[in-house]
């Protein structure tokens, strides 16, 4: 596998330029800047809110300094609350080229688009000359998510991803799974997989927080259709989603934007802290994908039964389909058919290997289906989080200790 080495030591499997709007008012201009390069790794990201939000700022900083990102163009209207100077400094300090355009000072829509396109053209030429380096499986950070699930997701695609995760973790890679709200009922099992008892407590607490949060929103997870599909209990349903995590030990609990400090399996807590303030934790699958990417994931494995077609800005998305009907209907959109497990032509282990092969292919520069089709969805909304406590990341102490010993 090949990629680009960044000054912080991390490696990207893509060399993307992100054009980021810092308020919805700058969205059109930013999008117009990207259009001539729509197939040349120039991606549009942004935050629509006019009022500053620490979470959104942190996310934008993590995304703009993501290993898959080689250069950044910030597009501001001028009067929004987003701290553009701080973001520009952070990107610059990361060793990446960065330019900020301010529509109100740069002569309005047309002029800012022209300036932006000229900047991207130069930046693209520079980035295209950057040398590539070897990337090892152990240097990958891989996230997983499920969306548009069906009755087969929990018995084919999700456990197959779990097997791929087990192989990746065994190779020293970092794997991230998420959505504590879909893991209600699995906290006891998750706690038993934690590498320390303190981490086990934190995991249990994070699921309790998710249960309270969704209860306040009036959302139970177990629906009548679940029982009709053969699921009997909440914990059984959650296990279907949880199966994506595989069977490795859990090395830590992170929140959106946190970088896992070591290889291993990490749980991403996407449910905001404090009282319910900004509505649904994540309004659609892409919001969760963006949070996984902000944690450093260079690629995402997405399982679906009904047939989600999304991709993402910044990191490629690999689709694993749970059943052959959907796969055959949407074959162009799917990377792996886990429905073969139901058909009896493949075992879960074999599909796990197919997923691992797809990861290696995409991390070697091969395009995933959604990437090939030009999917670059992106969502970022208001949220609030408290930082994780020290018990959530036991391996950061181990890593620090090892570094000290070296």
């Amino acid at each position, binding site marked *: 596998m090949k990629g680009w080495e960044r000054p912080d030591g991390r490696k990207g499997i893509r060399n993307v330029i992100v054009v980021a709007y810092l308020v919805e008012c700058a969205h059109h201009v930013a999008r117009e800047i990207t259009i001539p390069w729509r197939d040349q790794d120039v991606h549009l990201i942004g935050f629509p809110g006019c009022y500053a939000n620490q979470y959104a700022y942190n996310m934008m900083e993590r995304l703009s300094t993501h290993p898959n990102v080689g250069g950044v163009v910030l597009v501001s209207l001028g009067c929004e609350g987003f701290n553009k100077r701080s973001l520009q400094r952070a990107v610059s300090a990361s060793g990446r080229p960065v330019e900020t355009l301010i529509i109100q000072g740069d002569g309005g829509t047309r002029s800012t688009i022209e300036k932006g396109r000229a900047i991207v053209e130069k930046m693209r030429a520079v980035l295209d000359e950057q040398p590539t380096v070897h990337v090892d499986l152990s240097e990958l950070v891989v996230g997983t998510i499920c969306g548009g699930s069906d009755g087969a997701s929990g018995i084919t695609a999700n456990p197959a991803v779990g097997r791929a995760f087990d192989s990746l973790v065994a190779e020293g890679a970092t794997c991230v799974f998420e959505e504590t709200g879909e893991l209600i009922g699995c906290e006891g099992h998750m706690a038993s997989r934690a590498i320390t008892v303190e981490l086990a407590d934190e995991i249990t607490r994070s699921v309790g927080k998710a249960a309270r949060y969704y209860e306040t929103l009036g959302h139970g997870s*177990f629906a009548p259709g679940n029982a009709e599909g053969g699921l009997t209990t909440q914990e059984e349903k959650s296990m279907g989603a949880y*199966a994506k995590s595989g069977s490795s030990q859990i090395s830590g609990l992170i929140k959106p934007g946190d970088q896992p400090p070591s290889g291993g399996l990490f749980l991403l807590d996407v449910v905001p802290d404090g009282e319910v303030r900004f509505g649904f934790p994540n309004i659609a699958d892409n919001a969760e994908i963006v949070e996984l990417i902000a944690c450093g994931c260079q690629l995402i494995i997405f399982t679906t039964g009904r047939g989600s077609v999304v991709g993402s800005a910044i990191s490629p998305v690999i689709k694993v389909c749970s059943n052959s009907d959907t796969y055959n209907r949407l074959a162009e959109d799917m990377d792996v058919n886990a429905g073969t*497990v139901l058909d009896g032509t493949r075992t879960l282990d074999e599909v796990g290997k197919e997923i691992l092969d797809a990861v290696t292919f995409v991390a070697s520069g091969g395009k995933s289906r959604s990437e090939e089709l030009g999917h670059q969805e992106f969502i970022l909304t208001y949220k609030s989080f408290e930082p994780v406590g020290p018990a959530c990341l036991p391996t950061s102490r181990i890593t620090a200790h090892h570094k000290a010993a070296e």
Partner: protein
Amino acid sequence: MTDQYDARLLLLHPDDNVFVTRAKIAAGDSLSIAGNHMAVAAAILPGFKVARTSIRPGDSIKKYGAHIGSATAHISLGDVVHTDNMKSDYIPTYTEEKITEYTSGRKIS
């Protein structure tokens, strides 16, 4: 528990005491598990659980190698395991009352 079983059944984890059906099993079909052959009384749809062993009331039901609830009745090898004979051991808000309510009057068919 190493055993031969019907190709329409899927074993998700070696510690499990239930299989998951990967295809529809029609009423009257014969189901074979570990050398036993059982006639299926009512059709079983894909995604349902079938007992891999005899299970006593109160026993843990294991799927994915994890505890997903407890048996509420004696379950024989080859029986469908669902709301009639198992329950959640999870927080009450999410469990039996609601599930029973959701499935009341509905039989597996």
